[in-house]
């Protein structure tokens, strides 16, 4: 469900952007941070399905999955989402496969639910791969 509302929000933003700048968008590159736990294929399907509603049927969408990397502000430790994913999801849902969770909805809430694996600090940065971002837009 979240992939559908994300697709809708993204297309609405692109459509407004095109109208405001009086341009025809041709290609959009999207970055998807692992932390957001977005189902890339589902997001893609939803974007393709809804694009026509926003007059964006001709746009070519490309997706780049970005590994999420964290850095602790307390001890400097650097770690990756892949190292902690299962433990975090088990803690949130008890299940690592079907887990609708607050970080999936709002990746910036990582500090509420994740701790530094080395010093247990809650004070860390997501230095890469936080959520869904528009990396570039090509237009004519």
């Amino acid at each position, binding site marked *: 469900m979240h992939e*559908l509302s994300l697709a809708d929000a993204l297309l*609405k*933003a692109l459509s407004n952007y095109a109208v405001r700048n009086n341009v025809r968008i041709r290609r959009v590159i999207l970055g998807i941070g692992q932390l957001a736990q977005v189902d890339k294929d589902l997001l893609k399907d939803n974007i393709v399905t809804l694009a026509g509603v926003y007059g964006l049927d001709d746009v070519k969408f490309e997706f780049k999955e970005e590994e999420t990397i964290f850095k602790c502000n307390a001890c400097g430790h650097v770690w990756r989402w892949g190292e902690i994913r299962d433990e975090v999801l088990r803690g949130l849902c008890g299940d690592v496969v079907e887990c609708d969770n607050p970080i999936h909805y709002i990746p910036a*809430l990582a500090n*509420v639910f994740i701790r530094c694996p080395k010093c247990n600090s809650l004070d860390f940065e997501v230095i890469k791969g936080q959520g869904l971002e528009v990396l570039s*837009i090509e237009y004519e």
Partner: protein
Amino acid sequence: MSMSDFREEVIIDKLSRCNYVLMVGAGKGGVGKSVISTLLALKLSSMRKEIFLLDLDLHGSSIPSLLGINYVVKESEKGFKPYEYNNRLEVMSLKFFIEDKPAPLRGHYKDYVIKEILTLTNWKSKNVIIDLPPGFSNELLTIIKLVRKANVKRGHLVITNPSIISAEVVKKYMTLLKELGEEIIGLVINMAYMKYGNAVIRLGELRLGKEFQVLAELPYIPGIDNYLMRGVIPKELDKGLKPLISKIVPLF
């Protein structure tokens, strides 16, 4: 070409479709911003005004407790569903995502959280009441930026209590709003007095300059949270709210 933040595009679009955005703030904590935001939302929705009450106090969220709401956010295909308190009052709060957990968010993450919530919250009401947190930080600056870009009608209601230490901070807050070019619709002195039998006991005396237009003085009501949890506005408070409501109703 890049688009700086697609979320801002969506939020600005949503806000631009609203009729009025009322921001309730103080700069100071503990003066009753959340209580007054809640009172206004209850009163105005009872007067057939559609209200979206947005709790932006990310660290000290109070609105859900004041309204007795125990809700975990649900998502529809159009986004997060606000809590429907009644058919004219919708509520959204970070608490609906994280329940009672603390949110240790550095400033830039507060921006992200606010934008993620507003991008995907699917509210219908045309009038927005925003309960701001204490401080002069991201929540205030970010929401002002978004509301300004949306070019929606807006105003600030500023709350103080009758103490000098509160008024000092509130004066700075009002100076900041003026410098930002924001419209202040009025100042409310909350917990200004209490009634004891027939006696009225003043709880402090503020000497504010003439430039501070006091819109209303509200009484201190012991156990106000217990009233609000039942959706009840105490009679004395209802009376005190009248000048405030008269000012806001034509705007909404």
